[in-house]
């Protein structure tokens, strides 16, 4: 596989095909981050497009201080967050303790996850999608994008200890959900 930096150099020389390769490599991850923050496919797609156009314009200023993916996800996360703040359909409130966004449930259901009639992975995806934007992004970055705590710190601007605490709390929350679900399934079988 061609390295990111080689593709970037090609883009800077005017090779648009190289930019297409970069996009194809990262577009689903960028879209996922935007979707986790915005909770809406159309908005997430628009934001993801904006992110790549921004990246194209700013590529000359990428200084390789971090991995290209970390730089890209930072732009994606912040662009999505700006968009979420602009959109009035979300009830945003900045929490005093950790400054993350609280999102209102669109269809009036409780934020507890709808864990029925789907396989476990789908249920987990739904559960993650129902998390607060920052929480969903943290889980996505840690597991899907395989970013470590230090890289997540760069992307989100949260402190390391805050990230670790949140990851612990989130995974415990998901474990409890999983446990309940398994207990319900056992009950159904009996």
């Amino acid at each position, binding site marked *: 596989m061609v390295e990111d930096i080689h593709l970037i150099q090609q883009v800077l020389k005017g090779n648009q095909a190289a930019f297409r390769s970069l*996009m194809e490599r990262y577009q*689903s991850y960028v879209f996922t981050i935007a979707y986790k923050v915005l909770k809406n496919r159309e908005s997430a*797609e628009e934001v993801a497009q904006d992110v*790549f*156009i921004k990246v194209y314009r700013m590529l000359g200023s990428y200084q390789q201080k971090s991995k290209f993916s970390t730089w890209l996800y930072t732009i994606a996360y912040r662009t999505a967050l700006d968009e979420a703040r602009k959109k009035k359909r979300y009830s945003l409130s900045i929490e005093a303790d950790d400054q993350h966004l609280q999102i209102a449930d669109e269809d009036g259901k409780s934020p507890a996850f709808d864990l029925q009639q789907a396989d476990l*992975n789908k249920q*987990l995806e739904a559960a993650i999608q129902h998390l607060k934007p920052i929480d969903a992004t943290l889980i996505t970055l840690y597991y899907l994008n395989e970013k470590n705590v230090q890289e997540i710190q760069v992307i989100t601007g949260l402190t390391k200890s805050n990230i670790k605490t949140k990851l612990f709390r989130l*995974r415990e929350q998901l474990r409890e959900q*999983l*446990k309940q679900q398994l207990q319900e399934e056992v009950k159904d079988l009996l």
Partner: protein
Amino acid sequence: MEENQDIKRVWTQLDGALNEKEQADFLQKLQEDPELSAAFAEAQQLEAHLKEVEADEPSMRFTANVLDQLPVLYKKVSVEPVLSQQSLWRGVLLLLASVLLSFTAALSGTGTGSGENSFIQWQSYLDKFMGLPSSALMIAALTGFCIVSVFAIDQVLKKRFLSKRT
């Protein structure tokens, strides 16, 4: 409190962040405490599922939509010098030929043409040259200066532009 610490250790173990001693203690406790063991099994299961969760995919038109909107910032541009090396040499040769011709014309105009009167010939040439109107000399000097400047600017810009792009 103790239970919370144990649960934290479950996740730290799964993250591979326990040191050797902590790991040995944890594994020991895992064997002794069935609740912790169950929690560890659940956490392992969750961890495996989280790693399997797939990325969301944008629409099929996504790549094309972005590429359509891309500005042509990095469109390849010509970096050929304004004056090619060949045309520059042609210009120099032309200039030399003109000077030579005018010099010959000036000498033949004096009507002497023999070697013994070379000083007079030179004097005659210089007189003719000095006799040119000052505006003509000024135009010739300015033209020469402009040609040299264009060449120099072209070289500097080319060097700077190429160094920025690489």
